[in-house]
Every structure is written in structure tokens, then in C-alpha cells.
């Protein structure tokens, strides 16, 4: 059983309440940071921990913090990205709903490091009831002297506010989030300038994911070097995985990144296997944007090694034979599922969520949705598959923000690995309406020719 740093207290009754959270050792990181460390020392610990952004991109958090510009007399902001909207991802919701004080504690410590006196949580609008939970936690923290003026008598001031979005996936992109927080449409900004220089209201800003900020708590409590000992290689610490789809035990799991994908899917400690005697057909291991893999490539890399649940191993083989850790949204498809239909629902999602600024994404996502629906309904032509490939190539890399890439990758990977399932739809226009393609060869061992 792996180490748990974030969810180890999740099952303590009433951990949502301040008194219980504090009794269980909560807010120690704030005491330690504010009383015995300088802001730069806190940043240094986060750097040493090797913590990588948990929102999806995996950028080193300490490095992001060190980019923050610090001009005299200009306020700086920490904004927590709680706009969790990537299909398959529901880990931040779990954390905020059940252990809200962990986020608040992480925010106080992080805000101190960054010199922010006013920090925001930008939460997706649909998580309306969680706003109440967070505001209650903030009030409790303020009543107990962890927020407000002169915290712990150190002279440091901080207020935390919760801002609700209103239904827009794009606001998970940090510059779109800042636009939205300024009361505008969520259109991503052109970078540079980066938020670290010109962010919220043109002031230096750090935007971090909920889980990233929560991880600062154990990093400060135990020290960056101790944190870095957990995990493997550049995948340090623990990661929350939200598992869903066709598995026996969907839910949020904290892993220490040393277990294999196979163990994660089949062990009773985690997903508990595939229900109804079905077989594993495919999986999207890191949220809908990352490449889907057939069962064989999911469990074993192209080198023939066991694939592990960490940043490097999930990405092993690049996009040709690998995928990504992404946001940790782990979507499992059994052999009764249709990859074409699943890809269609994702394409529809991205069309719906495109902000419309860049033509390749605005137009391309709509085209991909329509063509995928045609193929799914048995009205596709063979040339449509090539057309889909062509469109996704023309979206990728040609947009202001990564939503274009995020829309292109799932379509590209579905065709790359499941092309014969697409062709079967085209060749069997009536049969494909009655039944699905099934498992076929997708779980068969792969023999790669040895390279000289």
C-alpha cells in the first residue's frame, strides 16, 4: 500500500470542520512557514520537492513560482485553478468537498511564499455547493486567526476569496481563467507576457491547480527532500487519480507513482477490475485530451516493459505508442464499448468548449464532430478517416491556447490505434448500428521487430 499525503485523513469523521482538521495536525505548515521560514525558503523547499503541476501540464511548480516578477509596490496574486473540467477528472472536487482546509492551508503557505495578500480560488460554476463548503472553511480559518491581518503576529496579511465560473472548460487555461476572473469572456491571452509578469489585473500572478497547492502542505511539513524521496525519478510525491468508466470501483485514489497500470486497474485497492466479466479494451489514462491506448500498449510499453503509473512511463513511446499522465483522469473502456462513439462524444465536447478565437479550433472541432458522427452512424466514407487525420493535424499547434491540441490528440490517437474499428464502421454501415466492433486484437501481445 502506497504512502498517502493528501487523502490520509480523508476518512476521519468531520475532517471538513476546522476543529477536527486542526486536531489532526492541520495548519502546521502555516505555523512553520510564517514563523521560521522566509518566503524564498518556502519556494526553495517546493523546488527541492520536485513537485510538478497537477492540473495536466506537469510543469515544475517551484520553477513557476521563481518566475514571478516582484516589482516594488505592485500587488502579486495567487489564483487557484479549481475549474476542473477535463472529462474524466474529478479529483479536485473530492479534495475541496471533503478536506477543504487542506486547500486553504496550502493557499496560506503558498501565498506567503509568493507575497500575495489577496488570493483567489476560481471554481467551476457547476460546483456550486462546494463554494459554500470553501467559504465556510475560509470563515473558520479567519475566526481562528489564520487569515486576515497580521497572521500569527508575523505582520503578514491575507484574504482568500472564492470566485465561481459559469460553465466554460476553456477557463481552466490559465490566461482564460484570468480573463474570466476579471469579468470577461474566457478568451485565452497570447503569451508572452506570461501571468508571472502580467496576470490578474496586469499584476504578477501565479495560477496553480488545487492539488498542486494542497501538496505544498506535506512538502513544508516534511521538507522538500523528504517529499522527493516518494515516487520515482522526476515523478515525485503522490498523485490523485480519478478513475471512471467501466471499472468496479470508480473513485479518487492517491498513488505514490510506483505502481503499475495493471495493478491500478485490477487490484482491489484501486479500480477493482472490469465489471460484468468484460475485458479491458482501451483506456485514456490522463483526462480526455491525452491519447487513448489499446489494452496491450496501456499495460506494456513498446519496449516490452511494464507500464507504470507515473509521468515518464505513461509518456514512454511518445504519442506513437504512449500517452500522458495529464490531469489524472483515468477513463477505462471495456470490450462492449465503441471507440468511434466515445471519440465522437469527446469531439462534441471540444466543439462545445472552443472559445472561438482561433479559426483552426473553432471550425476544425465542428468538422471533426460531424465527420465522427457520420462514421458512427454508418454514413462515413473511407476518405473521411483521412480527412479527420488531416483536420486534426491542421488544428494542432496552430492555436493560441492548448485547447486546439487537446481536441486534436484524442482524434489522432483513436485513428492511430483503432483505425480498423473506423474502417469497420465504413465497410459495415448496417452492422455497426446493431453491434460494436468488440475487443478484436486490442489486447493481443505486440511483437515489435528488434531494431539493429
Amino acid at each position, binding site marked *: 500500500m502506497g504512502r498517502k499525503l493528501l487523502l490520509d485523513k480523508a476518512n476521519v469523521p468531520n475532517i471538513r470542520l476546522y476543529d477536527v482538521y486542526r486536531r489532526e495536525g492541520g495548519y502546521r505548515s502555516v505555523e512553520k512557514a510564517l514563523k521560521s521560514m522566509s518566503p524564498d525558503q518556502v519556494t526553495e523547499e517546493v523546488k527541492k520537492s520536485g513537485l510538478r503541476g497537477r492540473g495536466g501540464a506537469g510543469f515544475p511548480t517551484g520553477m513557476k513560482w521563481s518566475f514571478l516578477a516582484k516589482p516594488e509596490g505592485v500587488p502579486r496574486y495567487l489564483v487557484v485553478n479549481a475549474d476542473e473540467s477535463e472529462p474524466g477528472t*474529478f479529483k479536485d472536487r473530492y479534495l475541496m468537498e471533503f478536506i477543504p482546509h487542506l486547500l486553504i492551508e496550502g493557499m496560506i503557505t503558498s501565498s506567503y511564499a509568493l507575497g500575495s495578500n489577496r488570493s483567489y480560488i476560481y471554481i467551476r460554476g*457547476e460546483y456550486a455547493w462546494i463554494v459554500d463548503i470553501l467559504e465556510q472553511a475560509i470563515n473558520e480559518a479567519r475566526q481562528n486567526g489564520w487569515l486576515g491581518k497580521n497572521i500569527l503576529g508575523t505582520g503578514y496579511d491575507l484574504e482568500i476569496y472564492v470566485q465561481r465560473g459559469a*460553465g466554460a472548460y476553456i477557463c481552466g487555461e490559465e490566461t482564460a481563467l484570468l480573463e474570466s476572473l476579471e469579468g470577461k469572456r474566457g478568451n485565452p491571452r497570447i503569451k508572452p507576457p506570461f501571468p508571472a509578469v502580467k496576470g490578474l489585473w496586469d499584476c504578477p500572478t501565479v495560477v496553480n491547480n488545487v492539488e498542486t497547492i494542497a501538496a505544498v502542505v506535506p512538502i513544508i511539513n516534511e521538507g522538500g527532500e523528504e517529499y522527493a524521496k516518494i515516487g520515482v525519478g522526476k515523478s515525485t510525491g503522490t498523485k490523485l487519480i480519478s478513475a471512471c468508466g467501466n471499472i468496479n470501483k470508480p473513485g479518487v485514489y492517491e498513488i505514490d507513482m510506483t505502481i503499475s497500470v495493471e495493478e491500478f486497474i485490477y487490484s482491489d485497492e484501486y479500480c477493482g477490475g472490469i465489471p460484468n466479466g468484460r475485458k479491458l479494451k482501451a483506456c485514456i489514462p490522463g483526462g480526455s485530451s491525452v491519447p487513448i491506448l489499446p489494452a496491450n500498449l496501456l499495460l506494456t510499453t513498446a519496449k516490452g516493459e511494464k507500464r507504470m503509473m507515473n509521468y515518464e512511463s505513461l509518456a514512454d513511446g511518445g504519442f506513437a505508442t504512449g500517452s500522458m499522465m495529464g490531469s489524472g483522469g483515468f477513463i477505462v473502456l471495456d470490450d462492449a464499448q465503441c471507440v468511434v462513439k466515445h471519440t465522437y462524444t469527446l469531439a462534441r465536447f471540444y466543439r462545445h468548449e472552443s472559445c472561438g478565437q482561433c479559426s483552426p479550433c473553432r471550425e476544425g472541432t465542428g468538422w471533426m464532430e460531424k465527420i465522427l458522427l457520420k462514421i458512427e452512424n454508418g454514413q462515413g466514407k473511407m476518405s473521411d478517416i483521412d480527412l479527420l487525420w488531416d483536420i486534426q493535424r491542421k488544428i494542432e499547434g496552430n492555436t493560441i491556447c492548448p485547447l486546439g491540441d487537446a481536441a486534436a490528440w484524442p482524434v489522432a490517437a483513436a485513428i492511430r490505434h483503432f483505425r480498423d474499428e473506423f474502417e469497420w464502421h465504413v465497410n459495415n454501415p448496417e452492422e455497426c448500428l446493431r453491434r460494436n466492433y468488440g475487443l478484436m486484437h486490442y489486447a493481443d501481445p505486440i511483437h515489435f521487430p528488434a531494431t539493429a
Partner: protein
Amino acid sequence: MQEVKRIISFYPEGKQKSAVIPVLHLAQQEFGGWLSTDTMDYVASLLSLKPIEVYEVATFYSMYNLKPVGKYMFEVCQTGPCMLNGSDDIVKYIYDKLGIKPGETTTDGLFTLKTVECLGACGYAPMMQMGKHYREHLTKEKVDAIVEECRNNVAIKN
């Protein structure tokens, strides 16, 4: 009004434009579940904004209803993970039961069906949002119970 003032206090002075999204949520809740032009103009006046600054926001975000909706809105998620767990059947069952397709409202004005994209409840699929809360692990029986619950609530209030 107190709530509007509380929201405006979240931002530095002169940045009350940031309040437009939360205040629109409030307005939609207070004015019948949707945003009319009059309502949006009112929000603009509260925040000292030009009406267009409110319209452009209201039309961008999918949670704002720009047309009247039923008293209860069933927002059924239909994205990948929910689809894998049978969200299509839930949408169809609601149609069979209430006679409304996505985007339609029952003639008695009680129910609106809307299909939405991923709401972050993938592990508890299929699901829908109704008002402030999620209804998860949906089955036909659960849909029956929710419809019953809504009708009872209305009967009690009358």
C-alpha cells in the same frame, strides 16, 4: 443587494467588473431562472458597466439561460465517461417519461431537459445537475423519484 455588495468587496477598488459572473448567477436565481435583457441591463447598472459588457459575458458561459426555462432543469451530462455508463438511456428515458427532448420544456412549465458536457462527476455516472446539486448514479427508478420529488415540492408550495 447585500450579497451584491459582499461580492464586490472581493476585488480591489475599481475592479467591480470582476463581479459580473457571480452577480449574473445571483440575478438568474432571483429572476425566474433566466436572464432577460432587462435583467442584464439591471446587472450592468449595479456594477457601473456598459450593457454590452454584460451581454458578451452572458452569451459566452453555458450556465446562463437566455430564454425562459422550466422550474426544474435536468442537465444531463453526456460526455465520454457518462456515455460509457449509459447517459443516452437516461436522456431517452426522460423523453419517454416527460415527452421533452434536449432543449425543450414541458407544457406545464415544470421541467426543462438540457444535455450538457462533462460536469466532473465521471466516477458517479450517469448523472445530472438539478439546481445547485448533482444527482448521481442515475437509474430509471431514480429519475422517477426525482420527478416525483419535484412535483411534490410544487404541490406543497401551492
